[in-house]
């Protein structure tokens, strides 16, 4: 367990190093192009922000951030407070989206196992397909029509809307995985035994079958918690919330190499944290060693 924990954590500096190495190793232009101001400023920026040519160069963006200096090739750039605020927005969207989609997934799986009504069954079966068949940014757009987008002031209402738009595709996916697992559990002997003992259907589902199905959800769906990150990129764009996804897109568009390196590393760290959290939940749910 401890080894696994350390191994997972080690991914973060490795990603930081690899991305920096990759970005810094972008092709160097030939001599006659060296005069072009664009290229010159790009190179200067890489040397300044990324410590091009230094062994520990990949630490430089972090050192700059720690000193409170801004990163980026604008005169102003983004400093650690900006990055923290942006990350805060994205995390709020992601966590709310995760809660909404998990809530939906449990509701969905429960309904689908319980219902005997043919119309409900048809709807439940069709719904995920309908959601999959809609490009993820549609949901955000549809919500933006009445709500408008963030301009200034409190971001929270728009973060909630973004979370809702983000949650839908993830909810469809989690719901399907959970339902598949739950249906499988419902056919297993221990469920039949519990029922035979006179427990109500709901009690059987929530007390016995659902925790076991949750383990399957953890296995199948945790890697795809990234769906939420992906979704928040799109929703941030539509709702004009300048969160981490926005910063990342901006950095890529403006070729702000240092921001790309920092952003990628932060995302990698998030993924590692999510997978560690999932392991913790698994240990808690699964009594088997």
């Amino acid at each position, binding site marked *: 367990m401890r080894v696994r924990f350390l191994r997972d954590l080690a991914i973060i500096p490795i990603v930081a190093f690899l991305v920096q190495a990759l970005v810094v190793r972008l092709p160097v232009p030939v001599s006659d192009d060296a005069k*072009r101001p664009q290229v010159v400023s790009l190179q200067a920026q890489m040397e300044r922000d990324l410590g091009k040519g230094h062994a520990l160069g990949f630490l430089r963006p972090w050192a700059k951030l720690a000193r409170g200096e801004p990163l980026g090739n604008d005169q102003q750039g983004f400093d650690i407070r*900006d990055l923290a605020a942006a990350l805060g927005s994205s995390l709020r969207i992601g966590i709310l989206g995760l809660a909404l989609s998990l809530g939906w997934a449990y509701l969905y799986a429960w309904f689908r196992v319980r219902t005997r009504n043919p119309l409900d069954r048809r*709807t439940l079966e069709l719904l995920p397909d309908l959601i999959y068949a809609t490009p993820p940014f549609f949901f955000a757009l549809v919500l933006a029509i009445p709500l408008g987008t963030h301009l200034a002031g409190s971001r929270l209402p728009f973060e909630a809307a973004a979370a809702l738009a983000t949650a839908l595709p993830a909810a469809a996916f989690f719901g399907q995985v959970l339902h598949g697992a739950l249906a499988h559990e419902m056919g297993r002997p221990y469920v039949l035994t519990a029922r035979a003992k006179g427990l109500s259907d709901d009690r059987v589902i929530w007390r016995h079958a659902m925790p076991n199905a949750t383990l399957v959800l953890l296995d199948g769906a945790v890697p795809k918690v990234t769906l939420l990150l992906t979704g928040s990129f799109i929703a941030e764009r539509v709702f004009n919330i300048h969160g981490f996804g926005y910063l990342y897109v901006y950095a890529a568009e403006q070729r702000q190499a240092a921001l790309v390196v920092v952003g990628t590393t932060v995302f990698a760290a998030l993924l590692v944290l999510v997978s560690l959290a999932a392991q913790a939940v698994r240990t808690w749910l699964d009594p088997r060693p």
Partner: protein
Amino acid sequence: MIPPPRTPWFTLGLCGLLALGLAAGRHIARPRYAPPTRVEDAVLRIAINLTPNTLDWNLSSDFSPPNYTVARATMRGLYTWNENQDLVLDVAASCALDDPKRPVEYTFRLRDDVFWSDGAPLCAEDFVLGWRRALEGKESKYFSDIVGVRDYLALPPGPPRAAALARVGFRALDARTFQVRLAAPRTYFPGYLAGVYAFCPAPSHRLRGLTEDQIRAYYRRTGNGDPLALGPYRIREWNRLDESIDLVANPHYPALPGRVPRVVLFPSDLATLLYDQGRVDFNFLDDGPSTFRYPAERRQAALWSTFWMGMSTRLLPSDVRRAIAMALDRAALGDHVLPRFRAASQLLPEGFPGRLKDGDPRLKALPPFDRNEARRLVARAGWTGRELTLVYHENGTFLPEAALAEGVRVQLAEVGLRVRLLGTRSMTAEMLTHDRRARHELHFRRTGADFPHPQEFLLPFTYGGDPAQDNASYTGFEAGGAGPAYRRFEREAQATAEVDASSLADRAWEAQRILLAEEAVLVPLFYPDRYFRTRPWLRELTIDPFNFIDFTRLTCSLPVKP
């Protein structure tokens, strides 16, 4: 077993939820705009595509147009222009020239009633500091006409460079007298002083003695009155993450009755929706569809700008270039694309200095609209059925370039040329690639003036082949395989800067004639207008011919009478 439930609870619930959401959405979406009741409460909220990326005007680059909008609201220069777009002195009370016809030395006497937003008086030292900072910035090329600047910029950092700075030709003679000396007479130089914000002053009483990092922090941190302003507005807050800029009236700027006390700029590309929802008060109606959507509210402002199509001299023989110029029916290009379409004949736009009057006999030299002749030229060159590539900006401009490109494609098909359209997000990148690997024959470009002087429209074409001046704009695309006439054009274009005002028009015409007729390297297509709508209680909110929102005379008439 429990009997199966009969009611489709899930489907019903889902439908109910959807209906509820729809009803709530309709309720929220109802437009509910209420104008402010008092002048003191009035806030002008503006959503634009981009907002400034820096407040440090001396160091910023001209690639970010919104910088100009805010710079013009918060800064003043030695010159400005009045309502008729004539250059007039701004913070200077007088300007003495060494030679009234061919001046190289300008001695400005500053007004004594101009104050920074903290109350400190503007002094000559502020210009010295601002300009010295600008020499290290991205716009230093604008300073290269000043004595000593070329030498200074050519030196690497070090003691010789610091010594060269003392020989650069601008200085403060006393607290209120500022002198500039040019290497040669340049008629456009006053235009620079009015229109290029790198020439704005910096508050020396605040910045003197600060390190570069501290100066950077001064321009970064807002909220405490920094950075100081000279213009009608000062910056109250710049939220870098939301990219919003909050401007309030500058108390040390001459009072104007009814001035809107606060202006807030937000970035958004959905300004039209936000305007309909009553959340912003100004809306650029950009791209084709939205210009037609609000005919009653729509207002328009003519720009000093020309949209043209460049033709590669490297890939297209001159006959084919002439044929293309003759094949285009410019008036028809605007049908259903823009509400008002001012078809272009000359490169210099209507009302611009140096432009020939319509009906001038010299204009007969320009290629006429004649498809038969065009077809003949194409056939003679053996180019019938050949495919050309036309590159256009796919977004990021305010013009419906895709629709215009489509129009050109259809029109050139009439004379036997096939056109493939290629959208790019970065014309600069496209041009850089092109230099290495010639691969497109035609491209769209818009030239906009920053100040009224023909040089604005001609200078870009003279940069080709001179890497020192190459700011990655037109980079030899047009000049690639140009003949002696093009070289003559370069001399003409350069010469327009050196003559006195009376012969300016003749020289500008000669340069245009070579560019449009003799060498046929470009076809002017039309002079763009800017479309927008604002609330009726706002007065004098206009777009100036240089394509910036003008806040200087902005007032409001409140309360709104029913």
